[in-house]
């Protein structure tokens, strides 16, 4: 089949990962390739010229090769048709789609191009061999994604090691009050699963631990895990709270996203799994003074299960599959000075509000504004949430897309903020029916099952939904003045409210980038882990036996996260069922792919 190859780039992604010159010369030597032309980046295509070219070389097949060649396809399809050829014989060689990034860029590009010239889907030709797979699985991160994946695999009677950085499993979901759009309480649906994990005989739970190193090859990985010194014996501890009572040191509570303090020895939250305390070395007097001072908790512990001198421990795990469920962190609102977060007392982040409105939170669900308090220890005034003295806000403004959809911050959409913001509005209206509630949004992204209906319901509840992003928040005699444009009713917005909630976006979890490097898997330009194929393989990665689940692959809501986490289990269980799993894609050599593609065209 007389084939013409056109190289067209859109200029997105890591272009310089591919050496186009060598790709061009390679293409020239492929069988059937009559002509190769490099049209550069974002070419303005002249269809007539293409028609002429196709006719001149009487091409029966055209291959467009580039980072995202689809962007040029319709022009070529039209040209092909106008030239009297078969429009369906325009093939794509998409470098980005098939993971032509740094390191393997050029050779991958060549193999993708080869397949296209043969008219064979890359996925069919580039099938790696299988390798024997160890039955164990390590799941990194124990949020809802990690929990779900671990349970799905363990329920099949397979060994799972669940490694979690913090002192408890549950992740962000455990911090939430209600979940949209059904408004069932997060804890009520999550805690049974957490308990199930804690009780599961096939799950080896490693909290307060981090993955140090990963070696080995697909199907046979050795994962080195650092069990950080928890300084409390998880099994002996009965969570009697004596240690916390006597502990003199305080630090902001991570679980309550810093709106209250906890002691240096603490339990993240009452339903924590494992239900045991831990010592935060950063703030503990004993640890900081190398055992010179304090240590009172160890003395007072009725069960003597506190060992303040405990040191980190390294364990090595032999596994066949690795599941990445790292989750996310929220965008640091301090980076957007004009919203005054960290400066103005009653500007909160979404997570802070989740804790504030949470029935199990510091105010036991009472929505109040902060009150000024003199701190005797630090001898300074500070703003705190006080369930008793705190005044209920008469008006609350919720600002969408904080750190998202913004070239100056994160260009991507964080997918969940619209819905959780609407949920906040509902919670405010539910608890403070007389309070005015405003949503300032750009696009209301209510896309999921029952979401649109939920959005309609919130509007019906009397929340003012204003299209227009708030540009700044300032203070005026104790209240927060928000300034923005109300686009639909074309007015300027400039009025004071009592509380501002910033719908902060999601960012890749701390350490995700390093881990990706250590595992040899790719991340996209925003730092999210790259899936093997956006459409057909959203959970596997370039590296055999390593899968991604949940937000670490890209922002996701709970149902989508759970579905993906379960999907990951399919890959793992599949390999265990037959004792063999797929090797990395990179393991298939260019010549093999050429040969396979050639063979496939003949049949």
């Amino acid at each position, binding site marked *: 089949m007389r084939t013409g190859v056109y190289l067209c780039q859109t200029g997105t992604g890591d272009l310089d990962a591919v050496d186009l010159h060598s790709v061009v010369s390679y293409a020239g030597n492929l069988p059937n390739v009559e002509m190769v032309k490099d049209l550069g980046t974002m070419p303005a295509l002249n269809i007539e010229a293409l028609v002429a070219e196709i006719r001149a070389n009487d091409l029966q097949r055209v291959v467009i090769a580039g980072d995202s060649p689809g962007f040029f396809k319709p022009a070529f399809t039209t040209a092909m048709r106008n030239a009297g050829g078969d429009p369906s014989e325009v093939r794509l060689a998409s470098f980005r789609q098939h993971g032509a990034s740094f390191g393997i860029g050029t050779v991958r590009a060549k193999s993708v191009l080869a397949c296209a010239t043969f008219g064979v889907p890359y996925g069919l030709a580039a099938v790696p061999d299988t390798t024997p797979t160890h039955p164990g699985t390590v799941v990194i991160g124990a949020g809802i994604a990690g929990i779900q994946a671990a349970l799905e695999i363990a329920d099949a009677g397979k060994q799972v090691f669940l490694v979690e950085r913090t002192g408890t499993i549950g992740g962000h979901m455990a911090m939430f009050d209600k979940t949209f759009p059904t408004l069932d309480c997060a804890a009520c649906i999550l805690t049974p699963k957490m308990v199930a994990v804690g009780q599961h005989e096939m799950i080896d739970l490693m909290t307060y631990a981090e993955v140090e190193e990963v070696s080995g090859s697909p199907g046979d990985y050795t994962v080195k895990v650092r069990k950080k010194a928890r300084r409390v014996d998880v099994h002996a501890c009965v969570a009697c709270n004596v240690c916390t009572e006597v502990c003199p040191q305080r630090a902001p509570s991570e679980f309550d996203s810093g709106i209250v303090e906890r002691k240096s020895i603490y339990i993240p939250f009452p339903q924590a799994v494992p239900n045991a305390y831990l010592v935060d070395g950063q703030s503990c007097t004993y640890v900081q003074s190398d055992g010179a001072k304090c240590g009172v908790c160890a003395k007072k512990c009725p069960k003597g299960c506190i060992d303040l001198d405990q040191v980190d421990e390294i364990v090595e795990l032999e596994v066949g599959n690795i599941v990445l469920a790292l989750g996310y962190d929220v965008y640091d609102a301090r980076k957007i000075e004009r919203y005054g977060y960290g400066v103005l007392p009653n500007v909160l982040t979404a997570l802070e509000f989740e804790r504030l409105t949470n029935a199990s939170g510091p105010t036991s669900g009472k929505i109040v504004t902060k009150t000024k308090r003199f701190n005797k220890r630090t001898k300074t005034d500070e703003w705190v949430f006080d369930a008793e003295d705190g005044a209920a806000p008469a008006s609350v403004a919720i600002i969408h897309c904080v750190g998202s959809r913004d070239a100056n*911050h994160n260009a991507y959409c964080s997918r969940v903020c619209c819905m959780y913001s609407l949920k906040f509005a509902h919670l405010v209206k539910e608890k403070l029916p007389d309070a005015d509630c405003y949503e300032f949004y750009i696009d209301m992204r209510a896309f999921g099952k029952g979401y649109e209906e939920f959005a309609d319901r919130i509007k019906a509840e009397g929340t003012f939904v204003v299209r227009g992003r708030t540009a700044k928040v300032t203070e005026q005699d104790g209240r927060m003045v928000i300034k923005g444009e109300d686009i639909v009713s074309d007015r300027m917005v400039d009025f004071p409210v009592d509380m501002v909630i910033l719908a902060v976006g999601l960012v890749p979890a701390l350490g995700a980038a390093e881990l990706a490097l250590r595992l040899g898997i790719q991340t996209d330009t925003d730092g999210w882990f790259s899936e093997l194929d956006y459409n057909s393989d959203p959970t596997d990665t370039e590296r055999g036996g390593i899968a991604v689940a949940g937000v670490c692959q890209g922002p996701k809501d709970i149902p989508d996260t759970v579905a993906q986490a379960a999907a990951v289990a399919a890959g793992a269980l599949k390999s265990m069922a037959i004792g063999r799993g797929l090797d990395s894609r990179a393991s298939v050599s260019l010549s093999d792919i050429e040969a396979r593609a050639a063979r496939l065209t003949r049949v």
Partner: protein
Amino acid sequence: MAIRANPKLITELEIYGAQDVSKCYHCGNCSATCPFSKEPYILPRRSMRSLQMGLEAKLESDLEPWLCYYCGECSTECPRDAEPGETMMSLRRWLTARYDFTGIARLFYLSAKAEMLAVIIVALIAGAGFLLYGFSQGSITQYGGPNAFLPASSVHIFDWTLAAVLLALLGTNCARMWWFTVGRDTKVHVPLSAYVRKIYLLPMHFFTQMRYAKCEQKRPWVLHLVLMLSYVTMLVLIMFFLESMWSGPAINWSVHAFGLAATAGLLVTTIVFLRKRLKKSEAQYQQSHETDWMFLVLLIVVAATGLLQFTLHRLGLDTAANVNYVIHMMAVVPMLLLEVPFSKWSHMAYRPLAMYFADLKAEEMVSKEREAVGAPQAA
């Protein structure tokens, strides 16, 4: 009544400098950042919208572009890099072209070559004219006195005629501006009394540029004000005190002091602006249209030669002074003849007028609203 959208306009505006307006996704961030954005004039987003949809009639009648001083805040804060500030600048250029009945302004904006050519031709004609005139009735070695190469009196007459022509051209364009923005507006009718009552706004805005002072950074406003005042001072001196300017070699401080100050003002500010545009330091200096360069270059040449003229005359180098004077005029004439009515300089007139009109219209709209609200109660 529905307005027809014209997706083609956006492409035309690209030539005027609006390269990125299509990127705008209307979050309203820019309007909220802008210190001037206040009902009924919400800017810059609304102008961006009209431009995206190509609502020509609406844009033509808009005063918003003139209410923007391009502090650049909106562009820096824009989440889509849609450059609202630059869009407003481009709209001002486009409007200048629209107001101009001769079509020359449009020509200049669309092709830098055309403008260059025009400037050169006018310069040459001016040069030739002055030389011919000079040799015809005086000697090049004589600066002042009876046999002067270019006697102040006759130059003065020339100045006045030129001024008259300029005024005529600019006047018509201003009248057209009024017609587009106020005159033909069926929704709001501004009564004559209001024009009279608010006339003070014109000189006030012209001389103080108080609105500009509202921008967050004050420095641009100061520079702009100095430049403008120096220019006006110079204009006044030339128009009314040309003889005493000419007098010498003894320095006549009562006039020359002003002259020197103004020249200094012009030189300093233009050079500062030139540097900013070259360095592209702030948002508002990043994209420069050809006309911006032409404007600055001419101004510097005029100021420099003017100063040189002054010195040469004091040093008694009459021949040099005469030659330099012709060069000076070769810059002055095109600057006045082309830049003032047809290019950037026209905004000296359009801006204060826009403020004036905007104020009048706003007042009308507010009173209208009051009636609207009041009516049912009366009934």
